[in-house]
Structure formats: C-alpha cells, structure tokens
C-alpha cells in the first residue's frame, strides 16, 4: 500500500494536486481555529464567556456556523461600485495569503516548494494584499471606504520597509534566502536567530501587526470612526474572504517570523527522526504563541492615529532596522 502511495505521489501532477488540496484546506481551517481562539481569548480578557452555544459548552462550532451564515447571505454590491474591481479585491487579498504558505517549511523535508529566494518571494507576495485593500476602498463608491483605503495604502506601504529590513539580519546570519535553508542554519548553529536578532524580531512583529491592519494599527478599519473603513460595503462571502484572509495572514506571518527567528520546526534536544513527524507540531505551537501575543495586543491597546503611525514607521522602525543590519553585517564579517 505504502509503495503504491509513494509511486502515486512521485508523479508531479498528482503531488501538485495533493499540495493544492492541502493548502486550500489549510487556509479555512487555520482561519477558523485562530478566529475561534480570538473570540475565546478576547472574552476571557473582557470578563465574558465568548461563544457558548454553538457546538456544546465550548462553542467550537461558532465559526463554522459563521462561515455558513456568510455564504448564504445576499450578494450586495453597491449600485455605483466598480463591479469587477469590487469582486476581485477580496480574492487578491486571500491569494496573497495562500501563496505565502508555499514557502513555509513545516518539517525537515516538508515544504510545498523550497524556493532559493524564499524570503524574497514571501515578502513580495505579502505586499500584494496592499493592492487588494486599495481596490476594495476605491471600488466601494463610498467616502468612508475611500478614506479607509487611502489610509491603508499609506500605512501598508510605510510598514513594508521595516518588514523587509528586519529580515535582512536573519538572512545575513544564515547566508541564504531559502526558508528551509535558514532553518537549517539555525539547526546547525544550535541557537535560534532571535538571540542575536531580537531587534529584528521586534521590528518584524510590529511591522507584521501593521501589515495585518490589526489594532494598534487598524486605522484603515477604525471601527469607531469609519464604520468599517474599506470593508464597509462588503458583506456575505466577500467579507468572509477578508475575514479569513486576516486570520490566515496572522498565521502565515507568524510562521515566517518563527521560521526566520525562532528556529522553525526545530527544538534543541529532539532527535532527527522524531522531528520529521513532530516538526509541523512544533512549528504550529510556536506560531500560535506569536498569534496569541497578537490577539493580546489587539484587545489591550487603542489605535494609533495615522500620523503617529507613520512617524513610528519612518522615524523609529526603519532606523532601528538599518542599524540592526549594519551591526549584524559587521559582526558577521568580524566573527566569520
């Protein structure tokens, strides 16, 4: 049986189909799990219970129920909206998230595609969502959406720079841009890069929060001001796409951070053959730790004002990241 499966999956097309299927399933699953975690954690922080009825006492079916609810809603498109752009925008945002999953190493040999420029690919693809958000804000034919979209454009472009610069330090230490290679470098070095790259890690996490437009950086949505910002006119399954994309993006950006800084699927002291199976679990556990921190921040902090946000990016994060690169490079050359 196993030899039959191995032969089957050695066929390129079959394995491609299998990989696509797994990726397609992962996104909603991850989205739902993290969404549920957010509901329950926020409830605990706010002296509430959270989802309680759907699925018995723990309410685990809440998000499934929400998903079904979104699907059966009427597809409302504002009369004045730019229809093709309006319909394409959520797809673009979701696609950029899905594409990120391709380069994350889940285990020693478990990666959908190990690109030699994995880091570069990941950062480039994640910035596609900026265009999607701008399209959403523009095409909604609504002043609030437009303002949200423009705010998003300014914010996301501003925070791309710290995001990219922050990872350069890890790349220098690993001497490769391939994601699997960076994890291998941490394994062979014996320590996760965060020990020396803590500045880079902090900058990356802050920039990731801003890329996700989560509080404290959710000016583009800014519920109490702009109703829902660029998302105002979206309802039904289009809104579900954005919703899922946000949670899945939390996962993927955290997974990238774990890969680059926290050692990926590796834990010291675990033998290699166990790691082949336990690797994905370790990666997911570390990722969820970072996701928990993101959720925690969201419910604790208020949001930055747009100009404060921009000055944080340009005046604080970019110089920090540049300094980090310079120091890392010097140390790498000196210490070899």
């Amino acid at each position, binding site marked *: 049986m196993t030899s039959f499966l191995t032969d089957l999956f050695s066929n390129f097309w079959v394995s491609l189909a299998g990989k696509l299927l797994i990726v397609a399933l992962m996104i909603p699953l991850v989205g739902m799990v993290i969404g549920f975690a957010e509901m329950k954690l926020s409830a605990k922080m*706010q*002296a509430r219970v959270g989802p309680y009825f759907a699925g018995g006492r723990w309410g685990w079916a809440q998000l499934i129920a929400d998903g079904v609810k979104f699907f059966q809603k009427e597809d409302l498109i504002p009369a004045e909206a730019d229809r093709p752009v309006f319909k394409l925008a959520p797809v673009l945002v979701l696609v950029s998230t899905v594409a990120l999953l391709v380069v994350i190493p889940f285990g020693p040999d478990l990666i959908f595609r190990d690109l030699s420029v994995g880091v570069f690919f990941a950062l480039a693809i994640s910035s596609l969502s900026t265009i999607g958000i701008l399209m959403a804000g523009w095409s909604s*034919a609504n002043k609030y959406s437009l303002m949200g979209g423009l705010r998003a454009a300014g914010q996301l472009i501003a925070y791309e720079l710290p995001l990219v610069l922050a990872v350069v330090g890890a790349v220098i230490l690993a001497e490769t841009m391939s994601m699997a290679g960076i994890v291998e470098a941490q394994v062979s070095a014996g320590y996760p890069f965060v020990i020396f790259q803590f500045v880079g890690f902090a900058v990356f996490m802050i920039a990731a929060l801003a890329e996700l437009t989560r509080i404290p950086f959710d000016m583009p949505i800014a519920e109490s001001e702009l109703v829902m910002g660029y998302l105002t006119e979206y309802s039904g399954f289009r809104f579900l796409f954005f919703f899922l994309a946000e949670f899945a993006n939390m996962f993927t950006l955290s997974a990238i951070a774990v890969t680059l800084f926290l050692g990926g699927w590796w834990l010291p002291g675990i033998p290699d053959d166990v790691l082949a199976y336990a690797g994905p679990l370790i990666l997911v556990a570390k990722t969820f730790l970072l996701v928990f921190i993101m959720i925690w921040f969201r419910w*604790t*902090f*208020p949001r930055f004002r747009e100009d404060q946000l921009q000055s944080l990016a340009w005046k604080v994060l970019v110089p920090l990241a540049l300094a980090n690169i310079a120091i890392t490079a010097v140390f790498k050359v000196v210490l070899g």
Partner: protein
Amino acid sequence: MVLDQDLVRHLSESSVSVELETEDMTLNIGPQHPSTHGVLRLVARVDGERAFDVQPVIGYMHRGYEKLAEVRSYPQITTLVNRIDWVSGYANEVPFIVAAEKLLEIEVPERAQYIRLILTEMARISSHLVFMASYPLELGAPTPLFFALRERERVLDLLEGVTGGRFHPNFNRIGGVKPAYGSGSSTRKVIQDLPAGFLAETRDAMDKVTVAVDEINSLVAGNEIILARTKGVGVLPPEVAASYGVSGPNLRASGVGFDLRKVEDYLPYHLFDFEVPVGENGDCWDRWHVRLLEIRQSVRIIQQAIDGIPSGPLQAKVPKVIKVPKGETYVRAENPKGEMGYYLVSNGAQGPYRLKIRSASFSNISILPWILEGVLIPDIIAIMGSLDFVLGDVDR
C-alpha cells in the same frame, strides 16, 4: 491632499445629499455612526485627513419638552425630565423639583435631602462610568468598556432597588422623595422608607467601585498610545469655554475650579467634605482624568452621607393637588455632564406656565465648530468623545 476633479465629481454623484466642493471633500459623520453618542450629524469639509469647518446638525431627537411641560402637572413633568440626560437619570429631576419647591416655599425634610444627594452622586458615578467605558472604545481599545459597565451594573442595581428604575427613576416628589414602596391597598396607611439593607449594600458597592476605578485607571492611564492620542488634543482655553457656556468636567479640565455643588444650595453639599478636581491643560486627557477623579470624590461623598443620614419623614406635608404659586426662579445643579438648570415660570396653575430647560450638553457641543477647526479626523472622534454629551441632553 487634493483630490482629482473627476474623482470628486464621481463621488458626488454616488454619495447621498451633500454638496461637494471642488477642492476638498464634504464628509458626513453621522447621524448613524458608532461614535456620535446618538443621532448627531457633523458636516465636515475635509482636505485629506484634516477637517475644517465642521458644522453639527442637531435636532434629530428633539421631543419638544418645553412645550410638553406646559401641558403637564409637576409630578408628570418629573417623568419627562429624567429622560433628558438618560445616562444620569436621577440627576435631572432634582433641580426641577427644587425649583418647584422654592416657589412653594416648603422645606424638604433632611432625610429626603440626604437620599436625594446619595442618589444624585450615584447617578454621577453611573454617568462617568459610561464615559470610562465608551471613550477608550472610540480610541480603539475595546476592553475597558466591559470593566466599566460591569461596575456600573452595581450602581444601577442599587438604584433600581430603591427607585424601581435603572435609568428613569422618577423618584422625586414635591416636598421630598417618594416613599419607597408606595402605598398599595394593604399598606395604604404605612409610609415605607428605604429598602432594608440599601445603605449597607451601597457602602459595599462603593468600595468595589473604587477598586474597579483604580483598575481602569491603570489599564488606561499608563498606556502610551492613549496618552499620545489624548494629550495635547482638543485644547480648550478657559475663556473660550466660559463664553460658550461649557460647564462641568469640561470646564474644570481647562483649569477653572468652578463646581456648582460648592456654590448652589439645591442639595446640602456644604455638609460634606470633598474636593473639586481641576485639570491643567484642557485637553482630552484632562477631561478624562477629571471625570475619573470625580468618581472617587462621589464615592467619598456617598460614604459620608451614608454615615450621617438622619432619620425622619421622606416627604414634607403637601396638599393633595399641588398648585405652585405665582413666581419665577432659576435653579441650576451640577449634573454629571455640566450645568443643568430649570427656569420655572409659574402662574398658580397645576403645571408651569413656561419651563426653560438649560441642558449641559447643548452648550457643551456648541463649541464643536470652534474646537474642531483644522483637526485630523481621528481627533474629531477623540475630542467629541471627551466632551461626553448625550443627544437627549442636546436635543431635549
């Protein structure tokens, strides 16, 4: 940022009702909006993120109280009046009843005055807790909402236990307060007093409120983002505030230590020892901080009042049908939102000839065009929230 001509024309055709300028955009904030405390509409001309010429449009909730008051008798007006500032229900009734009592020249028994004072201070705590809940929400922090409202439930439960209503107590009667259990058929001859255990529970609740307020303070006051969003934002100089009629915590945050509880005699505040918190700069942060300190002072007053409450009747002897003699008077009180006053003109009938209601929020938000000049849009929300108004108070 200047928007393109064609884009602007496209937007004007696709949006509803508002005329568009060629260079900047007219943005309608409200009347349906998460942050406007009710149906308030702000018509703002914005240039990018900066707004100038913000005109509030009010009157969506105008209920015509002053006209209605002319066809009601005094006990009936009490029910009308506590719907003006519905967040602090009880505090609206007191100056009105005091005005009627002034014209009747009757003396309210001491116990009734103490009860009125305790309930007014509880209304103040309730109103300020709503502010503590909603203001961080407008800045983006959703969590203090739950903590503050949970504490407010304690106060509202107590209010309901005494008066029967959480928001609209309708508890004052001319000459005092309503005997707590009323008079049904079996207890017709008996005048009831406050519910048993009310005072002890109030004392207990006040302790818990103090703890909770400290918690909220540490959650909010130490947060750098909140400080960055509120310090230096929406500075209101005291001269401007006075000339516009801004009163209450908004005026005190600008540095003017003026509290009507210290200078007016509608309730026996002179018997109690409390401070009047005063801010320094008149920005949003000071308005937050003054209200937080006021909650603590209110707790202090309530505890002193509970300790010192005298026994006695709850209501003075008044005739069956009340006809207030001819006269005019203006009684004003320190409501949680500011100065609330009633100018009562009576002609000897069962109802007033003219009742002018001076509501605090009306004057407080008349300052919006001045204070929102040249301000960024997120700051509009921050400033409006810090003024703490309620549309029922604005529109009457």
